[in-house]
C-alpha cells in the first residue's frame, strides 16, 4: 500500500513545496480513506480541512506573473492615494513652471498651464481604478442576477432575459457610450455617472457565463438533493449553486475591471469621459498627444501608466483563471 509512504513524504516536505504537496495530499486522503482504513482518522488525514477556495488561493499565490500583477496593481493603487494626499502638488495646483521637462521638483514634468504631471498621472490612476471597480461591481451584480435566474428557471424566463441580453449585446457599445456620455459630460465631476453607463453595457457577458454555469449546475445531484431536503428555490440558487459558480464570476469581474479602464480611456480620449479639471489617464493621453514629439513627458507617462495598469489587471485575471481551472485541479469533488 503506497499511501503511508506518500503521507510521510508530505510531512517532511520543505516549506516552499508544501502548497503543491497539500493539493496532492487531498487526493491521497481520498485514496487512503477509500480503502476504509480502520481508524478512519489516520494521522494527517483529518483536521486540516481545506476548502476549494483555499486551494485556489494557494495555487494563485504560487504564480509569479499573477503575483507581479497583484503587486503592481496594489502599489499603483496605494501610490495614487498617497500621492494624492501627501505630494507637494495637488493635480489642480498650478505652478509657475510651464512645460518643464522632468526634474527633481516635477518628476514627470509640467504641462502647458503649469500642472505637475506626476500629481496628474497619479490622480488619473486613482480615478481609473475607482471607475473600473465600480463598473466591475455593477456589471457583476447585474450579470450574476440575470444569469442565475435565467439559468435556474429556464423556459420563458430564460428566453425573455437572454433575448434582452442579446438586445444589449447588439447595441454598438461605442456609439451608445458616446451618446449617453455626451449628455453626462456637461457636468464636471461625473465619474460615477460614467461608471454607471459603462456598467449597464458590460454585464451581458457575465450574465451569459453565469447562465451557462447554472444550466449545468442545476442538473447536478446535489441540487436535486437539496431540493429533496426541502430547500426553496431561492435558497438553492444563493446558497447551493452560486458558490459553485464563483470561479468564472471572479475571473470575469477582474477582466471587466481591465476592460472598463479601456472603455473609460477611449471615452476620455474622445473627450466624452472624465472632464477637466478632473483627470483620468485617457484624458491625459488625449491632452498629451499633440505634444508627443515635443513635450514627450506629457504623453509618455500617462500612456505608460495606462498600459502598466491594464496589464497588471490582466495578469491577475490570467492567474485567477489558472488557479480556478478545474483541469489543473487534482482535487476531485
Amino acid at each position: 500500500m503506497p499511501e503511508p509512504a506518500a503521507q510521510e513524504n508530505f510531512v517532511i516536505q520543505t516549506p516552499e513545496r508544501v502548497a503543491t504537496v497539500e493539493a496532492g495530499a487531498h487526493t491521497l486522503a481520498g485514496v487512503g480513506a477509500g480503502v476504509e482504513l480502520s481508524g478512519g482518522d489516520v494521522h494527517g488525514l483529518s483536521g486540516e480541512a481545506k476548502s476549494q477556495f483555499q486551494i485556489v488561493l494557494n495555487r494563485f499565490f504560487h504564480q509569479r506573473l499573477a503575483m507581479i500583477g497583484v503587486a503592481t496593481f496594489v502599489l499603483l493603487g496605494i501610490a495614487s492615494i498617497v500621492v494624492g494626499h501627501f505630494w507637494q502638488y495637488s493635480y489642480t495646483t498650478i505652478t509657475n513652471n510651464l512645460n518643464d521637462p522632468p526634474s527633481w521638483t516635477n518628476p514627470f514634468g509640467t504641462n502647458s498651464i503649469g500642472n505637475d504631471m506626476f500629481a496628474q498621472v497619479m490622480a488619473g490612476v486613482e480615478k481609473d481604478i475607482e471607475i473600473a471597480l465600480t463598473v466591475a461591481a455593477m456589471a457583476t451584480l447585474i450579470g450574476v442576477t440575470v444569469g442565475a435566474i435565467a439559468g435556474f428557471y429556464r423556459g420563458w424566463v430564460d428566453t425573455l432575459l437572454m433575448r434582452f441580453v442579446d438586445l444589449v449585446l447588439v447595441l454598438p457599445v461605442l456609439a451608445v457610450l458616446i451618446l449617453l456620455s455626451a449628455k453626462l459630460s456637461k457636468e464636471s465631476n461625473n465619474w460615477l455617472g460614467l461608471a454607471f453607463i459603462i456598467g449597464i453595457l458590460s454585464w451581458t457577458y457575465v450574465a451569459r457565463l453565469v447562465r451557462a454555469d447554472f444550466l449545468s449546475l442545476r442538473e447536478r445531484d446535489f441540487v436535486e438533493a437539496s431540493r429533496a431536503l426541502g430547500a426553496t428555490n431561492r435558497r438553492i440558487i444563493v446558497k447551493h449553486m452560486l458558490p459553485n459558480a464563483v470561479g468564472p464570476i471572479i475571473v470575469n469581474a477582474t477582466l471587466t475591471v481591465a476592460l472598463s479602464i479601456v472603455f473609460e480611456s477611449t471615452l476620455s480620449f474622445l473627450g466624452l469621459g472624465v472632464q477637466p479639471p478632473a483627470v483620468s489617464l485617457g484624458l491625459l493621453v488625449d491632452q498629451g498627444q499633440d505634444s508627443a514629439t515635443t513635450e514627450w513627458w506629457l504623453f509618455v507617462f500617462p500612456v505608460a501608466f495606462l498600459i502598466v495598469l491594464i496589464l497588471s489587471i490582466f495578469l491577475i485575471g490570467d492567474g485567477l483563471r489558472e488557479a480556478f481551472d478545474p483541469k489543473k485541479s487534482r482535487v476531485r469533488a
Partner: protein
Amino acid sequence: MAEPALQIDRLEVDFPTKDGVVHAVRGVDFTLEPGEVLGIVGESGSGKSVTALATMGLLPKSADVRGSIRFQGRELLGLKEKQMTKVRGTGIAMIFQDPMTSLNPVYTIGWQITEAILAHQDMSKDAAKARAVELLAKVGIPNPSERVDNYPHEFSGGMRQRAVIAIGMANDPEVILADEPTTALDVTVQAQVLDSLRTALSETGAALLLITHDLGVIAGISDRVLVMYAGRAVETGTAEDVFYKPSMPYTLGLLGSLPRLDSDGNERLRQIPGSPPSMMGDRTGCPFAPRCPLATEICITTEPDLVVVPSVTSAVGGHRAACHFAVEVGRGDHGKVFSDGVVDDVVA
C-alpha cells in the same frame, strides 16, 4: 398507528416525448407502514426511481403523474410547491444513488448537515452544528467532531454516503426514500452503509423505501419486497415469500441470475434472455412474455393482474404475483425455468 406512513394507489407516470408517450409507471400500489422496510427491485428502466421521484414531487413538470400518493393520509399529488417543500426533508427524506455528486463540493460536510437542519428548524448555528456532529457519530463516521469540518472530497465514497444518510436523518423524517444507496459503492463498504441506514431507521423510527437492483441488499434489510417490471409491480410479498416462493418467472429469473455460495461452483449463472421492453405506446399482454420461457397464448393477449398466491408465512393475501401461472411457478412445477445457457465447454 392506523395510518400508513406512505400509501401509493394506482400510480401512473407518463412522459410525453417527441416520439410518443413513455409510460414509465403503469399502476403501482403499495403501502408503507410506519417503521417498515419495503424493498423495490427491478431492472433499470422498470420505474423504480420514477416512483420515488414522484413521491418527492421531484419529477420534471412535463411528467404526467396520476393516481394517489398519500403521506400519513395526506394527498401529496397536486400539492403546491411551497407545501411540498415543507414535506420534503421533515416528512419524507431522500437519499440519492451517487454520494460523489449528491454532496455540494464547496461546503464542509458539517455545513451541509447544518443547512438541512436550518432549512426546517429554528435553531442556533451552534446547536445545529452540535447536532451535525451527533448525527455523524450515529452513522458511524469516526472522529465526528473533527470530520464535521471536512469537505466532501476528503471523505471516501462510503463515508460520503453515510454523511448523506446523516443529512437525510437531520429532520427526523417519517419516511426515508433511498434510491440505490449502495450501487455506487464498493461491496465491502455497502455493508457499512446498510448498517448506517439501519441506525437511521432505529433513531428516527422512519419507514424505509429501499430501491435497488441488488437482491442481496434487499434480502438483508427488507421486511417486504416489491418486484417491478416495465412500470408495474409483478410480485409483492414478505422477503420470505419472494425469496423462497417466487411466483412470477421474472422474480425467478432475477434470483437465478445471482451467484450462489452453496453450488458446486461449476454452474453457470443463468440469465434472463432478451432485454426489458420499450415503455413507449400501448401494449397488450404480459410485458414479460417475450422473455418468458413459460409464455403461452394467453400471456401475449392478456396482461395478468396482481393476484393473491400462496405464501410461505401464514399471512394470507400478503403475497401477490402478476402471472397467469403464478401458482404453478410458486410450487416449482416448472423446475429450472431458465436454462443454464450455453453449456460451458471451458474447463473450470
